[in-house]
């Protein structure tokens, strides 16, 4: 190896990062090359000399201040995580009606949907046609709200998104289709019962329900099929 190739290895020589082979080559070289030997000796001397700069201990102030900062940070963090949870639960009286576990929330939403539909069907004969639609619309609207709220209460983002979609659907363009839906229900409630024969309305209804890609609706669908 030439002198400049040898000198390139000096930094590694100092930290001991060289394999035995290269180390031996350097040692061989410096026995015959005084220039390289002198340089390596000087470098090693100052590298070793750096030992005298002692490692010192910082004062206790450093530790005290660090833990104060950490505590403060944790408190802020807790406050931040508690607040949105508070908002989530401040849906008012609704909250008390909704159990904490998602599985129960789904079941209840599904059950209410079925009860609502059945109620609408059985109570129909005694009502004015117009009043009936209003009443049914309110019921379904309320059920949808429960569904939306129960979805919004879910931990998983995708389910929450489902809830947001659901509630926005409710408030906007689907008012019209809700009316259609109710009219279908009103004219032929048999659509939801497989024992009756209006297969077109039934399949349309089932399809419109299955388009709501929510587990709650899926459960409701299963109930409805056995209604």
């Amino acid at each position: 190896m030439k002198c400049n190739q040898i000198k390139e290895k000096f930094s590694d020589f100092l930290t001991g990062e060289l394999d035995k082979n290269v180390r031996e080559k350097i040692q061989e070289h410096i026995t015959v090359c005084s220039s390289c030997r002198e340089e390596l000796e000087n470098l090693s001397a100052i590298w070793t000399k750096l030992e005298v700069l002692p490692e010192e201990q910082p004062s206790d102030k450093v530790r005290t201040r660090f833990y104060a900062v950490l505590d403060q940070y944790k408190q802020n963090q807790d406050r931040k995580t508690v607040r949105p949870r508070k908002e989530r639960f401040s849906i008012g009286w609704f909250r008390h009606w909704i159990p904490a576990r998602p599985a129960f929330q789904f079941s209840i939403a599904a059950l209410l949907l079925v009860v609502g539909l059945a109620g609408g069907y059985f109570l129909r004969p005694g009502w004015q046609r117009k009043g009936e639609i209003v009443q049914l619309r309110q019921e379904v609207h309320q059920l949808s709200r429960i569904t939306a709220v129960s979805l919004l209460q879910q931990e998983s983002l995708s389910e929450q998104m489902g809830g947001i979609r659901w509630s926005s659907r409710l408030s906007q363009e689907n008012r019209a289709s809700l009316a259609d839906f109710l009219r279908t229900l009103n004219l032929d409630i048999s659509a939801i019962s497989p024992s009756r024969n209006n297969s077109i309305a039934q399949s349309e209804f089932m399809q419109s329900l299955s388009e709501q890609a929510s587990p709650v609706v899926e459960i409701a669908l299963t109930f409805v099929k056995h209604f």
Partner: protein
Amino acid sequence: MDKTNDNELMEQVSAGKVEKLAILFEKHHVRLYNFFLRLTGRRNISEDLVQEVFIRILKYSSTYQARSKFLVWLYSIARNTHVDHLRKRKDEVPLDKQWYEMESTEPSPAEKAEKSQEVVWLGHALGKLPLKKREVLILSRYQGLKYKEIAELFGCQIGTVKVLVHRAIKELGKVYFELSGGTAL
């Protein structure tokens, strides 16, 4: 020592378990303090800088990339913190003049006095080095960083780091030789 390694701990901090930072603090703050002490020669400033580094770690914990080595990340924050500090105190005493305000020592054995003198010379010599050379020397000599890690930290080739270390030591030796009146090495 804790079995969980630094990278895993920092990932946990990053995920919100900030209390885990205490383990990293206990493990690294003395070394970090000495990094700043050798860089600045000032005890009070070094303590403030350690404090600032850990505040920044908390602040930027969510940006920690699991794949990067914690030590490299720590020292990149430390370097930035130091540079920001230098910008703020531009108009103050030149660095090589502010080295280690040595406490006035009690009458001590000659050997101890000699050692103290060496420390002062070395400190001053380090302070005369350009920042990058000083950093590379401290990181490789005291902080236990491999050249590869320093290269990652500086964003350069490993060969560049080796050349820098070589030149830094050479320069330090020269300054030290001058300061000591050409007697000690």
